[in-house]
C-alpha cells in the first residue's frame, strides 16, 4: 500500500482496479438498487410492477389494516414471525455447524499433511451435487418410511417411526447439512496456521486439555470461527430450499416468503423486494457489529 499511491502508480492502480469496480457495480450494487426501487412501487396483479411510488409493501409487512384495508392499523405479526423464525433457525444452524465443524476442523488440522488433503477433499465431495438434489435426497432419507426410520425400527431402537418431515427439526437438519463446509473450511484454515507448540507449552505449564482448548486454541483461531459463523448464518437466513422441501407451509422462512412473491403469476414483486430489503438490512447490521467488534479487539491487541 505505501509508496504505490504516489506518482505514476496511483493512476495505474486505478485502472487495474477498474474490472473489480465494474463487477461490483454491475452485479452487486445495481440489483440491490433495483430491488430498493421496486420495493417502493405498486404491484401489478400478474407479476411485475406499476410505476407508482408507495409505501404499501412495507405497510403490508409490518401493519395489519384488516381484510379490506379500512380498519385502524394494528401490528401485523405474520411476517415478523416468519422473520423471527428465520433468525433463530439460522442461529441454531450456525451453532450446530460450529459444534460439529470445529472438532472436524481440529481433527483434520492434526492429521499428517498428506492426509489433510484427503480429509478436506472428503468434506467437499457431497457439495459437488446440486443443493436442490441434496435437499430432496435428505427428504427421502428422513421421511416416515425412509431408510433412517427403517433402520431404527429394524434395530429395535424405536417402535414408531420418528416424524421429521414438515417439522422445524427437518429444516434445521437441512440447513446444517447445506452449510457445514462453510464452517469447516475457514476454521480449518485458521487452525492450520495455529502453532500446536502453543498447546504443548500450555500442557508443559500444567494446563488441562479443556483449559488449553478454551484459553489457547479458541482465542487463536477466533477469526476463523467468526468467519465460519457469518458464512453459515447469512445464507441460512435467506435459505428457501430447506424450508420449502423439508419444512412445509408451517415452517416458512423469509427466503421462502421472498421466493413465493416472484414465482409464477401469483406473486407480489414490491412486497418481495421489501422483504428482501428488510433481510438485507438485518444482515448488514450483523456484519457492522462484526467489523466493529473486530476493530475493537484489533485495537486492544496492538
Amino acid at each position, binding site marked *: 500500500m505505501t509508496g504505490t499511491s504516489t506518482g505514476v502508480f496511483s493512476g495505474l492502480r486505478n485502472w487495474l482496479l477498474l474490472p473489480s469496480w465494474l463487477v461490483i457495480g454491475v452485479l452487486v450494487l445495481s440489483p440491490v438498487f433495483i430491488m430498493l426501487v421496486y420495493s417502493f412501487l405498486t404491484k401489478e396483479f400478474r407479476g411485475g410492477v406499476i410505476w407508482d411510488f408507495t409505501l404499501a409493501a412495507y405497510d403490508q409487512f409490518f401493519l395489519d389494516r384488516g381484510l379490506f384495508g379500512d380498519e385502524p392499523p394494528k401490528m401485523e405479526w405474520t411476517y415478523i414471525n416468519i422473520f423471527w423464525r428465520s433468525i433463530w433457525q439460522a442461529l441454531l444452524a450456525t451453532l450446530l455447524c460450529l459444534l460439529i465443524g470445529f472438532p472436524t476442523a481440529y481433527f483434520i488440522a492434526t492429521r499428517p499433511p498428506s492426509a489433510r488433503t484427503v480429509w478436506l477433499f472428503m468434506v467437499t465431495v457431497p457439495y459437488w451435487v446440486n443443493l436442490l438434489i441434496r435437499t430432496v435426497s435428505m427428504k427421502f432419507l428422513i421421511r416416515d418410511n425412509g431408510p433412517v426410520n427403517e433402520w431404527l425400527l429394524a434395530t429395535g431402537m424405536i417402535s414408531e417411526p420418528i416424524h421429521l418431515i414438515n417439522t422445524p427439526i427437518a429444516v434445521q437438519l437441512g440447513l446444517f447439512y447445506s452449510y457445514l463446509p462453510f464452517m469447516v473450511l475457514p476454521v480449518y484454515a485458521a487452525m492450520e496456521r495455529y502453532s500446536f507448540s502453543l498447546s*504443548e*507449552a500450555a500442557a508443559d505449564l*500444567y*494446563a488441562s486439555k479443556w483449559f488449553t482448548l478454551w484459553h489457547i486454541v479458541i482465542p487463536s483461531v477466533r477469526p476463523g470461527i467468526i468467519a465460519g459463523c457469518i458464512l453459515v448464518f447469512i445464507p441460512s437466513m435467506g435459505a428457501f430450499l430447506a424450508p420449502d422441501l423439508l419444512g412445509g407451509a408451517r415452517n416458512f422462512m423469509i427466503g421462502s416468503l421472498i421466493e413465493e412473491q416472484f414465482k409464477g403469476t401469483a406473486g407480489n414483486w414490491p412486497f418481495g423486494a421489501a422483504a428482501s430489503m428488510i433481510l438485507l438490512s438485518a444482515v448488514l447490521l450483523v456484519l457492522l457489529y462484526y467489523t466493529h467488534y473486530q476493530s475493537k479487539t484489533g485495537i486492544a491487541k496492538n
Partner: protein
Amino acid sequence: MADEIAIQITQVTKFYGSGTDSTRALHDISVAIRHNEFFTLLGPSGCGKTTLLRIIGGFEDFQNGEIILHGNSIKALPANKRPVNTVFQHYALFPHMSIRDNIGFGLKMLGKNAAEIRERTDEMLDLVKLTEYGHRRPAQLSGGQQQRVALARALAPAPRVVLLDEPLSALDLKLRQSMRHELRRIRESLGMTFIFVTHDQEEALTMSDRIAVMSEGELQQVGSPEDIYNNPANIFVADFIGQTNLIPGIVKATTADAAQCQLAGGQSIEVPLARQPTPNRGDTVKLSIRPEHMDICQPDSDSAQITGVLKEQVFLGTDMQFLIEIDDSILLMVRLQSTQDSLHRWNPGDQVGIRVNIGFVRLLTS
C-alpha cells in the same frame, strides 16, 4: 545433596512411525543427570537431542526404557503432571496474552492465588530484566526479549528440572554470547537442574557442567567439557568437538606406559598411555592430534618427531595456521599463536620438523 540424581534415564529407545518405514531416533540411552547440574546434550542436527528432551518433558512416548525423576518414575505421567518445564526452540509464547500473563500461566494452573502469582511474576521479570515490559504482548518484543520471557515462564513455577531446546539458536552472535552468561547466572542464582540442547560445541563447552555427546540416536560420551575435549572416547567425539588431525597408523609395539605407532606414511611416533587404554599390538588406529598441540622446528633438530613439507600458512588473527604434508600423503594442521616470533621463519615449500605435545595424543580405534 550435590551428587543427588535429578533424572535417571535408563535404556531409552525410541522409534518414530511403525513397521517398515519407522526411523530409530534414540537407541539404548542411559544417563544420570545430577541435581543442580547444567547438563548439555550436544550433537549434530538430527541426532535425537530434541526427541530425548521431548521424552523427558512428556510430549513423546517411547518404546523401551525408564525415566526416574528424583526417585519416582514419570513414564506414565502426562506432560501437564510433570514437575518439569520447557523453554521451546521457537519460544511458543501465548500471542494473545501479556508478558505478565505468559509468565504467570504456570502458577495460575497450579492454583496459586493472585497475590502470590503477582509477586513471583515480578520476581521473574526482574530476574530476566524485563520489568518495564510486563504489559506488552510477545509480538511487541525483540527476539532476545522473547527468549527471556520464555525462560521466565519456564522458571516461574520453580520446576525441579528445566529443559531448554536450542534456546539461543535464533539470536544473533552478540546476543547469543551475552545470553550464555545470563543463563549461567540465572541458573546459579536459582539452583535448578538445567538440561540444555545445542548443536553448537562452543556453546556447550563454555556453559556446561557436563556434556553428553550424541550421534545418530546414540550416546557417544558423557563428561566435563575438559574431559570431552582432552579425552575424546572415539573418533566421532574427537572430530566433532574442536578441531583435530586424525592420522591413520598401526600399533607396532606396546610397553607398560607407551605405544610405538607407525603412521601411514612410514614415520614412527611414541605415544604415552597414562590417560588412555592400552591398545593391542597390530591394531589399526587413528592418532588424534589437535592443531594447538604441535609446534614447528628445524627438521634436523632433536625435538622434531615428524618431518614434512610446509604447504600453506593462513593468518587467522590470534593464531597462524600451517598446513604441513608428511610423506606425500597426509596433511597436518598446526596452529601457533600469532605472538610467537618464530612465525615468519618458514616459507611454503620448506622442509620442517614438527614437535608434538605427546601427552595430548589420543589413540582411537572406533
